[in-house]
């Protein structure tokens, strides 16, 4: 069964909070670049970690449209559904 967008979003937040440099008050609406101070390489590397959790690969062009944690969760969910 494919996890819901909410489940994936919660998993992403849990992963992010494992990094002590990430602000503690993030939620699904937090902006990945602005609020988390990730540069483009950090975003790509973080997405790589998440990909393995739910067994999908995210093409780099999809990252251009992602601003918030919920956007990323939505993208991963859509890819997972398409792959199922």
């Amino acid at each position, binding site marked *: 069964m494919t996890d819901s967008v909410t489940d994936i979003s919660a998993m992403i937040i849990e992963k992010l909070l494992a990094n002590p440099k990430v602000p503690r008050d993030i939620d699904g609406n937090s902006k990945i670049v602005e609020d988390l101070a990730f*540069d*483009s*390489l*950090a975003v*790509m*590397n973080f997405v*790589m970690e998440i990909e393995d959790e739910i*067994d*999908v*690969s*995210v*093409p*780099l*062009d999809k990252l251009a449209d992602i601003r918030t944690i919920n956007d990323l969760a939505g993208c991963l969910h859509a890819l997972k559904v398409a*792959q199922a």
Partner: protein
Amino acid sequence: MIDIFAKHAGLREAYDALTATSPRNPFEVVIERPVSASVGIIEGRETLLFGTNNYLGLSQSKKAIEAAVETAETMGVGTTGSRIANGTFGLHRKLEARLAEFFRRKHCMVFSTGYQANLGTISALVNKDDILLLDADSHASIYDGAKLSGAQVIRFRHNDPVDLEKRLARLKDHPGAKLIVAEGIYSMTGNVAPLDKFVDIKTRHGAYLMADEAHSFGVMGAHGRGVAEVQGCEDGIDFVVGTFSKSLGTVGGYCVTDHDGVDLMRLCSRPYMFTASLPPEIIAATMAALEDMQDHPELRTKLQDNAARLHAGLQKAGLKTGAHISPVVAVTLETVDQAVAFWNALLENGVYVNLSLPPATPDNRPLLRCSVMAAHSPEEIDRAVTVFGEVARHFGL
């Protein structure tokens, strides 16, 4: 009026912070002139060069210099045109034939730079319906080629065949062509790719494999054909890309392959078509340097010995280097401030290396990238190691 440079505010802040604490701008080092392949004049002082890509020392090849001079005198200094218009001289065709023969391939295309060789090959091979699988630590020219191609790009973990295979398995129902891209030696770390394992994987999954041997051409393998030659997997590599600007000491790039379809690349590879071709004296110097490289296999042996000497020396001095012994030996430091201070101290003590900063480095950590040449003497390498050790002790590392 909107400030067109406003988007660079973050870059400006980082640049100002870096140059404020550094006695010199690390991005504006001037080599006033080379004294030899291994020594240059920087800030008026003779400085040991441990930050070039002149692996075989052939930028100073007498044979290449003479070939360039003679050709400039007889043919002029430029072509003023694209390869598909007035920019193909007999020499361009001759160099392509020589390189095809050297690599034992049917076809060769020569590009005006190594950057354009990656841009032009990748963008001509795949389009939006295809998938590119790139090693996560790929060079900017590979990422830029990917962007120009419009293909879907999936990164796999650096040098990780298991991760690559997992990603290919997820794509099993994708209808497009799949092209895997890896480098022979990675320019920042000196890591060597497991190309033989990638060949097994691409064969099982019906993908193509392109190897960028920019830093390994002339450097690795009994004949200098790169990492694929060392690992005995050349037949499984569909496209080999590389540059003349490292081991051959000139400028330009190439793609060699056995696929006949490559001929049409000359009519659809924009970085090949819409730029001036290499000047004749550069082509002549490149052919002469290629001959020098083939006539002197001992340069490769010397290079490997020198690489091992520098690698072992830096490790013995307690510095953190990569595991691979290759002509690129990178010392990893923890902070940018530390790396900038270390780099300045090395230069002030007569050793030039490359300061490489995130995000151009893996793992977000700065590197002091050293490159070894066949032209370095054992004494020059020992001197560089001594200076590294003294500076490390000075900073309490």
